[in-house]
């Protein structure tokens, strides 16, 4: 009962602290040097226990009038006080650069990369990174005058652009008695592709023929042409490349006619299911190596091939109805 009350108070205090920090800091650029004024510090629970123990020792030393007891007590207290400084110093002046995350499908995890730069000629120990309010954390020691790259994962929950929560950079160095931390309100977003359907075609028949036609293009060899950006590496004529040094690409007769993956060709009435099916077809098309384009209401992605095209199409799909979504 009391513990619950205490937890409520702590949580309320935490919320107030966060919103106050948010107000005074505002939004941060993607590369931030942790200035001393934005580093907060509080004792941990182990630190509170340590303070209690030191106090009991002080009482004991007073009671026995034992000067070695006093010496031990005061030494421990002084160590704790000095460690306030060291804990804070361990974080002060660290540069955190957000490197962003590769797009992932909904349900997978973003790997947000951060580069931690340490300009000081002393190691920074036990830097902990986590999303505010989430337990999963990464620890890293940043070497002297060097940098360390660290990835923090985040579940992709909804298709579209997903804003990363506030980043918390903290440390309990040296003795775990204190925790100093900084909040980074980065404008950091990750793109979540829609989760593709298991199969591209359900009961609807029309799409089968279309999809089948799309993938049959590799049968008829049509010759070679110059490489263009976006061509699949699988089509590069590696033998010719080794011989001549020119990058040539095998061309097939089917490839001339791009496949259109069309919103209106999908019979499903449910928008999300329709998007899932289209996403699956984009993946299939990319795997097969043919040229494909995407037509969805308001957007048309011109036909091309390769991973770049896949990304363009999936991005367009992810952002369907976007202005409303991004705000979320």
């Amino acid at each position, binding site marked *: 009962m009391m513990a619950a009350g205490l937890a409520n108070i702590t949580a309320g205090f935490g919320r107030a602290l966060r919103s106050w920090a948010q107000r005074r800091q505002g939004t941060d650029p993607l590369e931030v040097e942790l200035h001393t004024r934005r580093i907060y510090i509080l004792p941990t*629970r*182990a630190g509170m*226990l*340590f303070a209690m*123990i030191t106090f009991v*020792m002080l*009482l*004991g*030393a*007073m*009671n*026995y*009038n*034992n*000067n*070695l*007891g*006093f*010496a*031990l*007590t*005061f*030494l*421990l*207290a*002084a*160590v704790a*006080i*000095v*460690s306030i*400084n*060291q804990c804070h*110093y361990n974080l*002060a*002046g660290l540069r955190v650069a957000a490197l962003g995350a590769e797009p992932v499908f909904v349900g997978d995890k973003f790997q947000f*990369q951060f580069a931690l730069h340490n*300009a*000081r*000629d*002393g190691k920074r*120990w*036990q830097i*902990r990174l986590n999303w505010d309010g989430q337990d999963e954390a*990464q*620890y*890293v020691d940043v070497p002297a*005058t060097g940098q*360390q*790259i*660290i*990835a923090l994962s985040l579940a992709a929950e909804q298709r579209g652009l997903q804003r990363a929560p506030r980043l918390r950079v903290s440390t*309990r*160095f*040296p*003795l*775990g008695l204190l925790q100093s931390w900084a909040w980074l309100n980065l404008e950091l977003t990750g793109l979540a592709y829609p989760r593709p359907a298991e199969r591209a075609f359900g009961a609807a028949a029309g799409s089968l023929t279309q999809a089948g036609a799309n993938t049959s293009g590799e049968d008829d060899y049509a010759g070679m042409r110059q490489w263009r950006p976006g061509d699949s590496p699988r089509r590069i004529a590696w033998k010719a490349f080794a011989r001549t040094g020119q990058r040539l690409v095998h061309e097939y007769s089917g490839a001339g006619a791009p496949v259109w993956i069309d919103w209106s060709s999908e019979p499903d009435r449910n928008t999300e299911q329709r998007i899932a099916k289209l996403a699956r077809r984009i993946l299939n098309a990319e795997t097969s190596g043919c040229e494909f384009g995407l037509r969805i209401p308001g957007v048309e992605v011109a036909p091309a091939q390769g991973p770049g095209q896949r990304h363009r199409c999936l991005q367009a799909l992810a952002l369907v109805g976007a202005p409303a979504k991004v705000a979320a």
Partner: protein
Amino acid sequence: MSKQTAKDRRKEPARGSLGQLLWLAGALAVAALPHLPYIALWVPIVVSAVAGWRLLAAGYRWPLPSAWVRVPLALSGFAGVLLTYRQVTGVDAGSALLLVMATMKLLETRGQRDRAVVVFLCFFLLFSAFLREQALWAPAYLFIGVLVLITALLQVARFDGTVKPATALVTSGRLLLQALPLAVLFFLLFPRIPGPFWSLPQRGSQAETGLSESMSPGDITSLALSDAIAFRVRFDGDAPRGSDLYWRGPVLSEFDGREWEMRALSFFPKLTEQLRDEGRSAGYEITLEPHGRRWLLALETPIEWDAKAAVISAPYQLVRFRPIDKRTTYRARSLLNGTTPGIMTERGRTADLKLPTGTNPRSLALAQTMRADSADDAGYLNAVLRMFREQPFFYSLTPAVLGAQSVDDFLFNTREGFCGHYASAFVVLARAAGIPARVVTGYQGGELNPLANHWVVRQADAHAWAEVWLKDRWLRYDPTAAVAPERIEWGMDGALSRGSIAGAEEFRGRFLSSGLSMSWDALNAAWNRWVLGFGPDSQSDLMRWTGVTTPSLRHLVVGLAIGMIALLGLAGAWHYRQLQGSREPLLRAYRQLCQRTARIWRARHPAEGPQEYACAVATVRPDLATELNALFGAYARLRYDGAQDWQRVSAFSRAVRRFRPTRRPPVAHD
């Protein structure tokens, strides 16, 4: 790449936690070591067994025991301590319990906080060790212990395993060094509140003393000489002669025919007023080792003392109401005339003449005869002393056991004994002749430590003598001096080394008056005086010395605050330098480069960029053009090219240091 290593490390927590467990075990060992001689043997065995099992479990990834195993184990540990010591408080029992519980905690170390709790318990163990042992090596052990424990805390606070021991030790050592000045400040300035808040546990067998409340010489066959220190004395001026050094302790007035005992304490105030300005006196400071009894020692005959709550009892004995349970320092001043004031009432006279009827009949008869042969009381007592001196009486530390009539047996049969025998026989003979008399115990002599300029009085210097009531005051008679004058003149040590005491062979060489032991004693005394003895009084002395005449809480708080602010300011300034550190060497080197270039022609204008300035100077000194362009160009690249690699910066500053342009161009010879 770095992401990969971070991930890999997280995959093997077992290795990390094994290292951390090793550190925990090491912390336990360091904290337990000073307790080992004092705690029951089973405790370290159980502790090593459990800790060893825990390490193996971590190594082989055995599952940790469930609460069904841990709770009974902890309870049986508690019961074991309770059965061994019959208590769980006390220093011995408490430290054994702490050790057992810290070890049990090892069995459930999962998170960082569990591990930290073990280290915290180790801090307590270390603390309790100092309740028992405060010798000179203790502070060294304190530092080593704290260093190891802090390092262990540093290691177990890490989430992903340990770092190299050397790295961790350096880090925690730096922490400790930074903390040291602050700790000294706390130690000196933290308000000391005197007095215990709760009762101190009894030290039991530790409070042994050469003196006790009773004396039964007939039962002792071998007087063990203990070289333990009873107290140290520092005289204000020259020390009195060795034969004046009678340190008065318990006065034994009750005799049952065999054993002497203290009479219940009673007090006559103002005895000392009889004594003012009479003859030679000596002022001195005594540092008394704790002995657990109520008496203080002082040179005969104390007239002033500053020991708190100490009073003079009726038999002129300095006593205090609280037992001496810690090292106590007090000043006193004594008269050196061998007499003690007293008030002789009729009842007191009867009591001081009392001899149990039917005991020692031959002694009583001897006393009657000798008294009849003497002119007066003083003559009689001198005759007794002469008897001890001239007849074959011997001083021996290994006397024979005396029979039922102990004084008769001593005077007529064995005729050998130590101070207790002679004092006892002398008092019996005096009382038998109608002279009130009593036995005084205490210490006699002492040993000068010239290095520290203090005297050391050991338990072996314990002595007993007699006091008789003559001419309205108590006069000291030391019958032992009649038998073994060197014991009085040279002290026990001197007498032993001169070989004049029977039974002394086995004790000879016990006290090495060598330089080494003298230095050790001097060091110990300084430690006791300046560090262990630091308390409320020394603190106010210190405050007075710093000019604060009446130290108040306000002064202390202000002093502490100033000290803290100064220290924090220093630390802040240092950190600021460190924060600026990456940029500063470059700027410093550039400033130096500009200074050196300015010698050639002119100083750089404030608004002039590095390359502009280099070109301008090069127009005057074309022979330096390449060098100048290289140096200023390097600065511009370092300054404005983003990353400031410290290796490049230091290469640049080295180049600047090598750059020593001449004021004039070299003269062309051709």
